[in-house]
């Protein structure tokens, strides 16, 4: 059996203006098993000929040579390839599993689904015109790899007949997956393949569609906030008796699987508490993670003198537990902690302390005994302070995460103090990074016993229980992704919170996520090139219709959140003076746009699957106040031939929330500007037969105003990138 992997950007009506192969078919100009296979049946036949003739004189999928119209040369090419696709026919691999959306492209193709969720299948009818209006059988089967499918192409279980429509929306249909078994044991995700048995043979054959030929197409994940399968032991207080550790700060609390004797070395999670907090305050997290197979240690943290001492205790306690002497749990952990897979989680001053600890190893000013920098696979700060600034409180290239509550009454994100601006640390991280901004959570919701510091509007507090459910789910998914590379955990870092809301978290709990994977092609990060008219990749940037356009440092320049034209970066608590975190701000009351010309070297958007940017509403700006809700806008790609394809970010699942309506620091309501990552599958711009050459994108245009999204608003934009999955 042979296979055809239909790359998502090789959409049916896909014209390669610059990619045409002289005298031959344009690369990728096919819908099915080979070039010219317009109906996807793995061969060139009468149906394909009919499609070509129907498109005569027009651009489209039948424009096989990519010259802009369907004509005699295309006919000759098709006839020359008549018959089965070279190399034999095979199933067609493409992304099918999806969540539905209300507008074009009517679905977001994703991998991760909560146990019990409804998986939708999304078939682009324009790519598979042979399926329009048909009833086909869908199967969701246990994941098999390519060779396993070749050996056994049978489709077990009951077929799910789905009735397809004749347009893009009609290709999106729900499947009965509520009873699909989730993972068992310590597994976080369970893989399935989604198959459309086009010919109804009950086996995977040529012309069938499959999502999951190489790796699972559907990943059903565990309830990340629920306890794992393992019983847990705890040592309430272990005295390290380590003379290297500051006097009076030598105690640890440790959680580990009760049956650790039968298990191999387990990763270590270290929790470093904040000032006036206690190492005994994180039972909820220690127990949770240990039940999923981790050794968790919380230690006394020397935070009163400052961040340097706090970082020292983190560094030294990590060494102390890795030694796992007989005095700890009777030696039960000896040889059971993996010194190459360590996670540091710090809270408040401890949150800055873990970043400082990483920085000290990075700088070579501290050398651990039993581990090295490469062993620190993830650093996460819960509402960290920023006393030390970029020279010292710096995660560098660590895989870094920030958890923050919008109602924090201590490390408040206030405009008059850099020390209280947790997001400064996130902005300094140069590696893979993400953040979780939880509306209505306060500083001490993430421990058991800190004082009440809720500082948000009445009625918006989510409470300690809900905040800790969010924290448990966030950390398990985060750690599974960072340590294990679990593909099912990856989408927790960027999918809208509403998509993967942990069970048990009320529907009114909102969280905003940012994610910036380490590998990307940057169109504009607003840093390498400081002219507003030029992107960091060197292309022209044109702002039309908008007011107040400005590129600059994301640092509120006064001590209030009151909107003032003299403080265009109002609400930005992302940088200190002298740092480099920059972005673009503007507002509008009528249709407006910002267009980023794409330089020649970057025009092939098929190289990576996602277009990404981050956006935030401008807190307390009159346009934000008037909008009083989520902000929608449209992203348009313009190809080299001037053809365009647009989609609203909301239709890709993007959510740019109204700022949390916290008051204080001046007049009005609205707290710090709240960036959300918006990721759009690039292939979706070519969905439904839209004519756009994604291998030759000349410009990315963001469109605002009536017809494109919110009629008015104030927005900050940053990090326009083409990214890995």
């Amino acid at each position, binding site marked *: 059996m042979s296979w055809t992997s239909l790359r998502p950007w090789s959409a049916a009506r896909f014209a390669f203006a610059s990619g045409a192969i002289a005298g031959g078919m344009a690369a990728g100009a096919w819908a099915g098993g080979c070039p010219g296979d317009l109906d996807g049946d793995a061969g060139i036949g009468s149906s394909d000929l009919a499609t070509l003739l129907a498109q005569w004189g027009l651009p489209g999928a039948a424009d096989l040579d990519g010259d802009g119209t369907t004509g005699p040369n295309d006919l000759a090419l098709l006839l020359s390839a008549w018959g089965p696709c070279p190399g034999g026919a095979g199933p067609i691999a493409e992304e099918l599993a999806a969540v539905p959306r209300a507008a074009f492209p009517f679905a977001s193709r994703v991998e991760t689904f909560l146990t019990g969720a409804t998986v939708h299948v999304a078939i682009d009818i324009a790519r598979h015109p042979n399926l329009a209006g048909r009833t086909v059988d869908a199967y969701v089967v246990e994941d098999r790899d390519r060779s396993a499918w070749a050996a056994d192409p049978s489709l077990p279980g009951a077929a799910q007949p789905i009735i397809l429509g004749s347009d893009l929306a009609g290709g999106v249909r729900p499947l009965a997956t509520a009873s699909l078994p989730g993972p068992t044991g310590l597994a976080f995700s369970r893989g399935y393949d989604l198959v459309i048995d086009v010919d109804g043979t009950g086996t995977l054959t040529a012309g069938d569609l499959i999502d999951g030929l190489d790796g699972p197409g559907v990943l059903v994940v565990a309830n990340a906030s629920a306890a794992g399968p393992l*019983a*847990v*032991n*705890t*040592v*309430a*207080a*272990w*005295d390290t008796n380590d003379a290297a550790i*500051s*006097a*009076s700060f030598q*105690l640890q609390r440790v*959680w580990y699987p*009760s049956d650790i004797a039968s298990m191999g070395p387990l990763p270590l999670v270290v929790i470093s508490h*904040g*000032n*006036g*907090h206690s190492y005994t305050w994180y*039972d909820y997290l220690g*127990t949770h993670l*240990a039940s999923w197979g981790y050794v968790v240690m919380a230690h006394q943290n*020397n935070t*009163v*003198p*400052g*961040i*340097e*001492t706090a970082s020292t205790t983190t560094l030294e306690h990590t060494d102390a537990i890795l030694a796992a002497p007989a*005095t*700890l*749990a*009777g030696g*039960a952990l000896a040889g059971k902690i993996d010194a190459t897979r360590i996670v540091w989680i710090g809270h*408040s*001053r401890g949150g800055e302390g873990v970043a400082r600890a990483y920085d000290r190893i990075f700088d070579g000013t501290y050398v651990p005994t039993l581990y090295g920098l490469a062993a620190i696979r993830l650093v996460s700060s819960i*509402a960290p*302070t920023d*006393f030390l600034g970029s020279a010292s409180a710096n995660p560098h290239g660590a895989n870094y995460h920030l958890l923050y509550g919008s109602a924090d*009454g*201590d*490390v*408040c994100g*206030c405009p*008059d*103090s850099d*020390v*209280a601006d947790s997001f400064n640390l996130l902005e300094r991280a140069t590696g893979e990074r993400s953040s979780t901004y939880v509306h209505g959570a306060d*500083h001490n919701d993430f421990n058991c016993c800190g*004082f009440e510091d809720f*500082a948000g509007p009445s009625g918006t507090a989510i409470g300690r229980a809900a905040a800790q459910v969010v924290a448990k789910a966030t950390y398990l998914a985060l750690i599974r992704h960072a340590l294990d590379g679990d593909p099912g955990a990856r989408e927790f870092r960027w999918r809208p919170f509403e998509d993967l809301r942990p069970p048990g978290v009320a529907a009114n709990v909102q969280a905003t996520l940012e994610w910036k994977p380490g590998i990307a092609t940057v169109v504009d990060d607003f840093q390498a090139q400081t002219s507003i008219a030029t992107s960091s990749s060197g292309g022209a940037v044109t702002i039309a219709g908008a007011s107040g356009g400005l590129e600059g440092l994301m640092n509120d320049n006064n*001590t*209030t959140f*009151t909107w003032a034209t003299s403080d265009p970066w109002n609400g930005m608590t992302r940088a200190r003076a002298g740092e480099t975190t920059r972005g673009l701000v503007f507002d509008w009351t009528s249709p407006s746009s910002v267009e980023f010309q794409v330089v020649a070297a970057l025009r092939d958007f098929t190289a990576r699957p996602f277009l990404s940017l981050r956006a935030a509403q401008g807190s307390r700006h009159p346009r934000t106040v008037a909008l009083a809700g989520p902000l929608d806008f449209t992203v348009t790609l313009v190809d080299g031939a001037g053809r365009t394809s647009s989609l609203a970010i909301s239709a890709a699942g993007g959510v740019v929330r109204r700022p949390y309506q916290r*008051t*204080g*620091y*001046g*007049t009005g309501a609205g707290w710090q500007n709240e960036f959300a990552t918006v990721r759009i599958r690039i292939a979706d711009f070519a969905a439904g037969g839209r004519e756009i050459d994604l291998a030759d994108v000349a410009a990315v245009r963001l469109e605002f105003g009536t017809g494109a999204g919110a009629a008015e608003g104030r927005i900050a934009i940053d990090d326009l990138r083409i990214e890995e999955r």
Partner: protein
Amino acid sequence: MNSLIAIVAALPLATVAVPPAASAPPPAARAAAVRPAPIRGLVAVRPFRVAEPWTHEYRADRPAVREGWIVVLDADPALVRPRQTEQMVLMGGGLPLEIVHVAVDAGRVVAILPRVPDSVAIESVVFHLASPALPESLSVEAAEARRAAAVAAGLLPRDGAELARALAAGGGAVAAADREAFDRELAAAIRRHLPGESARADELEGRIDSTPRPVD
């Protein structure tokens, strides 16, 4: 907001700066504008000496500690409640105290005032809460500037009678081999003067439960 009201209410009027904004910022931010504040009382003072010194991590020069005083003092709870951001520094003269434990509701603090080369006699020490900083970042000069600011603000050493009572309450001088042994003396001070805070005393005495137990 309640904490803010508590702070403002507790401070002498003359020591509170006018807030910059129409609406009130939280205490952490406000603290930066607060001038030196007095402590409310000196409860106990106990001289000590250790054979093996430890490092005082509460000033940038990191002096070695061989002797000093265990002090128990009362302060405005709102000013000594541990916070994450900028916080006033509890000082004895020109040296930030090592805070051993704070009974946050009562505002009672057990701390260590080392005797270092630039120390003055206990009778001359001005205990005060100085402008916010991380103690570890304070140079000798910066710490001295805070002491001078406290004096300039009219703060005085404790009077003789109060100091005499505190010394009597502290008990006689204590000698310990090292910090671990000295921790037991600190625990005793907590048990005596912060009777509701036994958990911290237990930790300092090594009265801990290190037996592995299943989590329910």
